[in-house]
């Protein structure tokens, strides 16, 4: 797919800017804090309706403006020319449109523009907490199966509600000064007239348990499926980049074990685990079981990657993951996604740079940000469109 142009209005530090992408590779060149990453962020928003840098739309809207507008002209081999547009408002309301038609549900918009993003922050995939890896897999899933955005949102909503209920029950229990015994309060719901308020709440907890298990199982099964497909790709890329000196293994560590690929079995395992942790949940007043506690483990030569080796080796791992992501999206979508490289190329050594560039060639439209061109291969520079970014404006060349 090919993003022909991008238009920004009151987005971050851009007041009004259009960009035509005239080559398969575009280099955004400029000093720090000029708006290079902001531009990539606009593309990310058109793709995922989400930014990895902020969850508050207010941050995305230019200071003192009421609304930000992003639109893009995309060409897809499968569906031709498409116009995507997104309006963000200070009051938090958003609107999205595809070819000028407003979309009421975001799932109808997601998955139109596919991209893989690679920035220096991605080292957090190795070094950061489990939530970094969950976000990564979730972002990939939304691109491959847009309905997953809804699946995940439902799970998170059930989780928030259940946590609120557990907190209330804990508070009431602490006040009553007795040890909570769940079995005695959640048994009979049909006899409502004799139930106290807190019994009613406790009996509704079992409904939230059931909802958590249903919604959570959907999340787990989809995560397991995508990771299963990613494993051989990432491991192969890693072998190739490290010239077979290192062996990467990647495994999904779901909080609720996936014993066999059946929703019913998984839901039952889920409920059993909730039951076994119910005392701890009451003491802590929060949900301890479910995919919000999943992790993904990377090992290199049988050692957890976090503890293994140098920053360079960790970069190799992240690069392998990104290349695997690129390949998987291409396999599933049937055409190459965009690649956004934020400051990352200069951080790779020459061998890894070449590996990446060889893979990209001209097939993947690539937008690269950098503060200087020194690290780039000359041939490569010739084939690229270079745009100079300065204080929220683009100029064709640096003067």
């Amino acid at each position, binding site marked *: 797919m090919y993003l022909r142009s991008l238009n920004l209005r009151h987005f971050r530090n851009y007041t009004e800017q259009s960009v035509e992408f005239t080559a398969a590779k575009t280099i955004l060149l400029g000093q720090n804090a000029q708006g290079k990453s902001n531009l990539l962020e606009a593309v990310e928003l058109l793709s995922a309706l989400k930014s990895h840098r902020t969850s508050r739309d207010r941050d995305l809207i230019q200071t003192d403006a009421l609304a930000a507008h992003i639109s893009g002209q995309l060409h897809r081999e499968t569906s031709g020319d498409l116009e995507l547009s997104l309006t963000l408002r200070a009051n938090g309301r958003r609107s999205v449109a595809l070819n000028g038609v407003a979309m009421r*549900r975001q*799932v109808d918009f997601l998955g139109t523009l596919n991209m893989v993003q690679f920035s220096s922050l991605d080292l957090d995939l190795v070094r950061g907490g489990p939530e970094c890896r969950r976000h990564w897999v979730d972002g990939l899933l939304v691109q491959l199966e847009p309905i997953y955005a*809804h699946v995940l949102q*439902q799970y998170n*909503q*059930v989780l*928030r*509600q*259940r946590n*609120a*209920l557990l907190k*209330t029950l804990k508070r009431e229990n602490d006040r009553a000064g007795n040890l909570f015994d769940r079995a005695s309060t959640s048994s009979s*719901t*049909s006899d*409502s*007239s004799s139930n106290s*308020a807190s019994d*009613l*709440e406790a*009996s*509704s907890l079992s*409904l*939230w348990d*059931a*909802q958590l298990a249903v*919604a959570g199982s959907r999340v787990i099964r989809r995560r397991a499926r995508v990771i299963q497909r990613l494993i051989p790709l990432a491991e192969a890329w890693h072998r190739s980049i490290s010239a077979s000196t290192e062996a990467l293994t990647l495994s999904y560590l779901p909080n609720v074990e996936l014993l066999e690929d059946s929703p019913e079995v998984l839901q039952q395992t889920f409920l059993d685990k909730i039951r076994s942790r119910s005392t701890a949940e009451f003491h802590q007043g929060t949900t301890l079981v479910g995919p919000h506690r999943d992790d993904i483990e990377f090992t290199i030569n049988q050692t957890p990657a976090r503890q293994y080796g140098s920053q360079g080796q960790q970069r190799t791992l992240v690069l392998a993951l990104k290349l695997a992501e690129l390949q998987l999206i291409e396999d599933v979508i049937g055409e190459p996604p965009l690649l956004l490289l934020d400051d990352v190329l200069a951080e790779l050594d020459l061998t890894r740079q070449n590996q990446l560039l060889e893979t990209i060639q001209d097939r993947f439209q690539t937008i690269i940000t950098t503060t200087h061109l020194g690290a780039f291969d000359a041939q490569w520079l010739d084939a690229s469109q270079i745009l100079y970014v300065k204080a929220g404006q683009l100029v064709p060349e640096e003067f």
Partner: protein
Amino acid sequence: MYTRPLARLIEHFQHLPGVGPKTAQRLALHILKRPKEEVAALAQALLDAKQQVGHCSVCGHLSADPVCEICSSPKRDDRLLCVVEDSRDLIALEKTREYKGKYHVLGGLISPIDGIGPEQLNIQALVRRVSQQSIQEVIMAISPSVEGETTTLYVAHLLKPFTKVTRIAFGLPMGGDLEYADEVTLARALEGRRELE
């Protein structure tokens, strides 16, 4: 910019749902242009509505009488009961003119985040109604959000010992809202209802 009483009026309008600063200003300036009698009538209507409209003692729908028109109508089928979140949804269903049974208004959905548990809702009265009358079918017409789903399951669980419980079919699984569904969609949803296991 605004003289005190005008500023106060604008501020009150702004607290209304769906009214922003611009609309609030327009409404306030409009009020000032109207004859005094008309404004007095509006003010009186506001007070009357607030003072006189309460909840029907049977179903919980908004009503100026102790028992609402629907509950007291001999033309409505006593054997059918439709459970809705609030009066807005009841009105939306009434507009379809498809439904001839009676209603029960819960007054909200179970939502621990907002401090709403089953005991805050009009559920005990519903159980009493269903256990004491001969009702053949209770239709759950609740939006399929996470909160709506939990409330539906909760109520269904309580009512099942007494009667058949069904739910309306939603064509919009993605947080479809009853209030915004058009009449044709709603009528179809009502028709395609299914029994809850």
